[in-house]
């Protein structure tokens, strides 16, 4: 498990940079709102979307309760269909398995379909290090690969890029003529990819679902590139997180309806492929199909009762689009592969709470994520749980420019709140202090403080005024009101 890749401590700086970048703000605002609204329209068209979410949730629970059995069933059926199953405990093990398969296939080039798991295990780095050329064939993934970035969004990796950015990038890396016409930009990418598809000895994909009953993997997409990756090259390698299992083929309908509508507002994505083993004699398709089943922290989460629901996620990205924090700070601020509310759960679970401990706090806990989640993951509740874990396991942050650590501050707060006289006295002291700090508001009435001393209070007044406590608190006023 690689912990070095996560840089959550820098989230504040990156959030600041994102907020200063009007270009980036515009890109995130328009894209997230578009997807958010498409989802609303799409779910409005289906009667009974609520029961469907409940069904999806129940199916996921069933899978997690019996994951060992379903995994064994899936593996048996893959092999029965002529595929080969490989198990990897960590990202490194998974990369090693893939490298070995690519070597055996004698391939110098690998063409890849979009896979968040591939990003998670940093497979491209491992392939590059072994002098194997890996080319992303999803347009968004190609864009982030060419610009040396991580995906900015789970389903729209290049959400942060405008047409103008892509034009510059392609001109620079693919030596194309600048154009801001999306169709021409797509044609440029397609032209560059054709040659790779023709040459690559190995095609790689992720999997949206792995069907235990049939040993099939299911991929959904809009560009057709995954279908190309999984059928044209001689060898197909699929990276599958162990949580991707669904019990039966008949359950697929539930998830397809949930995923397309939640992610992009589509009834179905343009392509849905159900891949069951390699090609049969006399048919098209890859000679070999390898399925790499990857744990990389998932089993530990399965054992964690409070966090287990995280494994229900079908990676639709709806929570990112709905999240007011994600819309402001963007995907890269989260410092790893997964971003947004689900990223703030997944990153600490898979990459370690230590390096990711800023993330659970990057939420106003507004609950918009839970409202849109197709499998009703209680994200705010789990963020609260992780906040508790952070405070239990790690030294309390010492805010800059503050006389005490956060924990001491909270202990003092609790001491005061347990004593009504201390609370009243605290109010009196605050009124006295604010007498010096505050000035009359614009329209008289309430007095306002424009600069408070000490972090975290000074953080408030960096962008807002703070109301001075009222000269007569309610407890004093009540005496005149009591019957």
């Amino acid at each position, binding site marked *: 498990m690689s912990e070095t890749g996560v840089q959550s401590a820098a989230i*504040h700086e990156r*959030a*600041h940079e994102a*907020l200063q970048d009007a270009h980036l703000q515009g890109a995130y605002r328009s894209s997230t709102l578009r997807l958010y609204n498409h989802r609303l329209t799409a779910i409005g068209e289906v009667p009974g979307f609520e029961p469907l979410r409940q069904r999806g949730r129940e199916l996921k629970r069933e899978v997690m309760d019996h994951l060992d059995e379903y995994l064994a069933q899936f593996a048996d059926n893959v092999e029965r269909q002529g595929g080969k199953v490989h198990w990897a405990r960590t990202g490194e093990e998974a990369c090693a398995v893939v490298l070995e398969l690519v070597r055996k296939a004698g391939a110098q080039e690998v063409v890849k379909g979009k896979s968040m798991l591939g990003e998670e295990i940093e497979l491209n780095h491992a392939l590059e290090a072994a002098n194997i050329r890996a080319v992303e064939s999803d347009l968004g993934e190609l864009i982030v690969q060419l610009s040396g970035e991580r995906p900015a969004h789970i389903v729209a990796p290049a959400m942060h890029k405008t047409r103008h950015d892509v034009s510059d990038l392609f001109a620079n890396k693919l030596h194309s003529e600048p154009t801001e016409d999306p169709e021409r930009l797509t044609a440029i990418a397609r032209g560059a990819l054709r040659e790779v598809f023709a040459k690559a000895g190995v095609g790689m994909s992720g999997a949206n679902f792995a069907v235990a009953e049939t040993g099939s993997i299911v991929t959904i997409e809009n560009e057709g590139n995954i279908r190309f990756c999984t059928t044209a090259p001689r060898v197909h390698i699929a990276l599958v997180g162990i949580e991707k299992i669904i019990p039966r083929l008949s359950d697929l309908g539930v998830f397809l309806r949930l995923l397309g509508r939640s992610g992009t507002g589509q009834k179905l994505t343009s392509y849905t492929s159900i891949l069951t083993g390699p090609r049969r004699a006399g048919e098209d398709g890859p000679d070999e199909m390898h399925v790499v089943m990857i744990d990389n922290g998932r089993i530990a989460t399965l054992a964690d009762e409070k966090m287990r629901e995280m494994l229900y996620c079908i990676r639709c990205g709806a929570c990112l689009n709905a999240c*007011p*924090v994600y819309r*402001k700070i963007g995907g890269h601020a989260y410092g790893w592969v997964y971003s947004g509310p689900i990223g703030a759960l997944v990153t600490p679970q898979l990459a370690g709470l230590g390096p990711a401990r800023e993330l*659970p*706090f*990057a*939420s*106003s*806990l*507004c*609950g*918009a994520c*839970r*409202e849109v989640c197709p499998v009703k993951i209680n994200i705010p509740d789990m963020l*609260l749980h*992780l*906040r*508790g*874990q*952070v*405070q239990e396991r790690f030294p309390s942050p010492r805010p800059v420019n503050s006389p005490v650590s956060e*924990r001491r501050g*909270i202990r003092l*707060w*609790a001491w005061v*709140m*347990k*004593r*009504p006289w201390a*609370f009243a006295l605290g*109010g009196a002291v*605050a009124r006295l202090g604010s007498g010096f700090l505050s000035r009359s508001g*614009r329209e008289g009435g309430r007095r*306002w403080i*424009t600069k408070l001393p000490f*972090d*975290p209070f000074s*953080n*408030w007044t*960096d*962008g*807002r*005024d*703070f*109301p001075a*406590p*009222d000269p*007569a*608190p*309610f*407890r*004093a*006023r*009540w005496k005149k*009101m009591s*019957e």
Partner: protein
Amino acid sequence: MGNHPPNVALFITCLGDQFFPQVGESVVRILRRAGARVTFNPAQTCCGQPAFNTGYREEAREVAARMVDLFEGVDYVVAPSGSCTTMVRVFYQELFADEPELLGKVQQLQKRFFEFSEFLVKIMNAEDLGASFPHRVAYHDSCHLYRELGIETEPRKLIRAVKGIELVEMKDNRLCCGFGGTFSVKYPEVSVAMAEDKVRAAAEVGAEYLVANDAGCLMHMQGYIHRQGLPLKTLHLAELLEMHE
């Protein structure tokens, strides 16, 4: 209850007590007008949410445990805050999950604990409190009130009953204002940027007043509006229900 007026204890909330005492006065007068007998226990302080929200469960538990004894013998407890009501009704369940004895008492409290607008409409069957306010007003659904307690129609019913008022809905009206408890000081820039969006949405529909039921959201939005020198004004729902213009 029979023919006796219900006994209602006010939970003013820590922010309400110190920063919005006039809201508490309005709540008391409105509850009385609606037919309740109102009491106030001065031993009350805070529900414990600031510590809970930041991950300090033990400190939150210590403060929250006091709440159980403060309101014994009353029919109802009413708070002018969706967030503090959520703390008691939703999060106490989890906070006291390992203490069966206390949890029983907590559940007794939860059954009697109501948010102000919810209590007026659902329990007192009161909608028209006789206020008049000929202004254009936008209502902000605070997140805990709307998403945790599912209260969205009650405040709107109360607002619509005000004579002369024009209630307008903001675009994306369920979007968080950015307060989020300690989020407001842990991610202050993001928090303020979210307030900016909210205030802009209110301005876009031509609202003169932005009404909400939570001291935290109001403090945050008001603080942003004041810093920016904007003409928009904020009101707690209880204050609105006492307007006679």
